[in-house]
C-alpha cells in the first residue's frame, strides 16, 4: 500500500471525495438541517464527532472484526458514538438539540459514516483513518455550511454569526458579538433584501443544492475542456 501523507488524505476528503457534492451521500441531514448557519455548524460538529470516533475505533479493531458480521459491528460502534453525542447535546447544548431533532440519532444510518468505516478505516491503520475522518468531516461541514449560509441569507435576509461559547461557561451557541473581544462584530449581518421564505423550506433546500451542483459541474467541465484542449484534443 502506497504511503499516504496525512495532509493529502485530509485534502482528498474535502475536495476529491467531498461527501455531499461528489459522492452525493448523507443527503438527509444535509438538506434537513441546513436552514441556517448555526444549525449547519451544529450538525457538522456532531457529525465530526461520530465520524472520527467510528473511524478510530473501527481502525483499531480492524484485525479483530470478523468479516461475516462486520456491518453489525460497525453499526454498533457508530451507534455508540451517535447516542453519546445525542445525549451530550441534549444536556449541554439544548437549543442545538431542539434544532437538529431527529437528525442526530439518524447519523447512525448515514451512508458516509458506514461507507468510510467499511471502505477506509477497516483497511487502514489508525493515523490515516483519522486523517480520512477529518477530511471527510471538513468536506461535509464545508458543504453543509455553504448550503446553510446561502439559505439563511436568502431566506431570512440576514446572517446570524454564532459560535460555541466556551468562555463564560454557559453552554450554547451565542452571537459572536457577545464574546469578549468580538463586540465589533454585528449579531446579525443584514443584507436588506426581502426574505424569500421558500429558501428555508424544503423546496429551497433542493433548489440550493441543485444550483450548487450545476455550478460545480459547469466549472468542472470548463476546466476539463481547457485541460483537454491543452493536450491537443479537438472538442
Amino acid at each position, binding site marked *: 500500500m502506497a504511503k499516504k501523507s496525512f495532509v493529502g488524505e485530509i485534502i482528498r476528503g474535502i475536495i476529491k471525495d467531498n461527501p455531499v457534492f461528489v459522492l452525493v451521500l448523507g443527503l438527509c441531514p444535509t438538506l434537513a438541517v441546513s436552514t441556517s448557519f448555526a444549525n449547519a455548524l451544529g450538525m457538522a460538529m456532531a457529525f465530526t464527532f461520530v465520524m472520527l470516533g467510528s473511524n478510530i475505533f473501527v481502525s483499531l479493531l480492524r484485525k479483530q472484526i470478523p468479516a461475516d458480521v462486520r456491518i453489525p459491528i460497525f453499526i454498533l460502534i457508530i451507534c455508540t458514538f451517535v447516542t453519546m453525542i445525542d445525549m451530550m447535546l441534549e444536556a449541554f447544548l439544548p437549543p442545538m438539540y431542539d434544532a437538529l431533532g431527529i437528525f442526530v440519532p439518524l447519523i447512525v444510518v448515514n451512508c458516509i459514516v458506514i461507507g468510510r468505516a467499511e471502505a477506509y478505516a477497516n483497511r487502514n491503520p489508525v493515523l490515516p483513518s483519522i486523517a480520512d475522518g477529518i477530511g471527510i468531516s471538513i468536506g461535509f461541514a464545508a458543504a453543509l455550511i455553504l448550503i446553510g449560509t446561502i439559505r439563511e441569507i436568502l431566506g431570512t435576509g440576514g446572517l446570524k454569526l454564532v459560535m460555541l461559547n466556551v468562555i463564560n461557561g454557559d453552554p450554547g451557541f451565542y452571537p459572536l458579538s457577545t464574546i469578549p473581544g468580538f463586540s465589533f462584530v454585528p449579531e446579525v449581518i443584514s443584507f436588506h433584501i426581502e426574505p424569500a*421564505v*421558500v429558501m428555508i423550506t424544503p423546496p429551497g433546500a433542493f433548489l440550493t443544492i441543485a444550483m450548487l451542483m450545476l455550478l460545480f459541474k459547469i466549472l468542472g467541465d470548463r476546466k476539463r475542456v481547457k485541460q483537454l484542449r491543452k493536450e491537443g484534443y479537438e472538442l
Partner: protein
Amino acid sequence: MTYTISPLPHVKSNESVKRVMWGTVAALLPITIAAIYLFGLPALTIILVTVITAVVTEIVIYKAASQPITISDGNAVLIGLLLALIMPPEVPIWVPIIGAAFAIAVPKYIFGGTGTFVFHPALVGFAFLLAAWPTLMGSGSTPNLGSFSNLLIETGAGRLVEASPVLVLLGGAFVLYKKYVDRRVALSATILLLLLMPIVGMGSQLPYVLTGGYFLGLIFLAADPITSPVTKKGRLVYGTVLVLLILIQLHFDAYFTGMCFAVLLMNVFSPFIDRTTIPKPIGGK
C-alpha cells in the same frame, strides 16, 4: 420531394408550434386589454416587464449554453404573459421579474425547453413566488361577487386575469376551437367541476369559481398539451382527478391558488398517468 411521415395520432391540422403559441397569445389579448383598462398603469407595467424579462432571460440562457435561440416561437412570450396575468395588481414590480426569470430558467430550460417540460413554467413561477414572498403575492382585493353583470367586467377583481370572466372564456373558446389546447382535459374538468360543486354542497362557492382565474387555469394552464398526458384515457383521468384535487382545495377555502396547485400536482402525476395508461407497443417489453 421528400414525404413527411409521423406516427399516430395524426393531428388534422397543419398548425406549427409557432402558430399555436402566437395563437394562444392572441386569444389572451382581450383579457389583457381588459386588465389594463381596469387596473391601469400597474397592470400595464407588470405585463410588459414580465414578458420582457421572460424573453431576455431566454435569450441570455440559450446564448450562454450556445443553443439556437427560439424566441420567435412565442413560447417565452406566452409564459411571460400567463405569469403576468395571474399576478395581483398590487405586487412590487421586482417580484414578477424574478418569477419570469425563474420560470424560464428552471422549469423551462433545465427541464429541456419547449416541448419537453413537465411542469407548466408559468405556474411553477407563480408557485415559487407564492412560496417565497407569500405576503406580497396575496391579492389585496378579493373578487367582487356581485350581480351577474359582473361576469362581463369585474370592477373589484383580485388578480389581473379576474378582470373579466367573459373575455377569458372568449379566448378559451378560440383556443378550444383551434385545438391549441386539449379539449378533453379542458371540457371534462370545467364541466365536471361546475356540476360537482352543487352536488357536494359547495354551491355557495360557485361565484369564486366563475371568476376569470379558474377559466384561465382550466383551459389555458391545465389543458396545455405539453404538460397533460398523451393518451386519451390518461387525459380523462387527468381532468377528473384534477377536479377532485380542486374540490379538496375549495373545502379548505383556497380558491385561485388552490386551483393552481391542483394543476401543478396533476403535472407531477401526468407522466405517471401516461405510464400506466399507455398501450404497450408491439414487441415492447
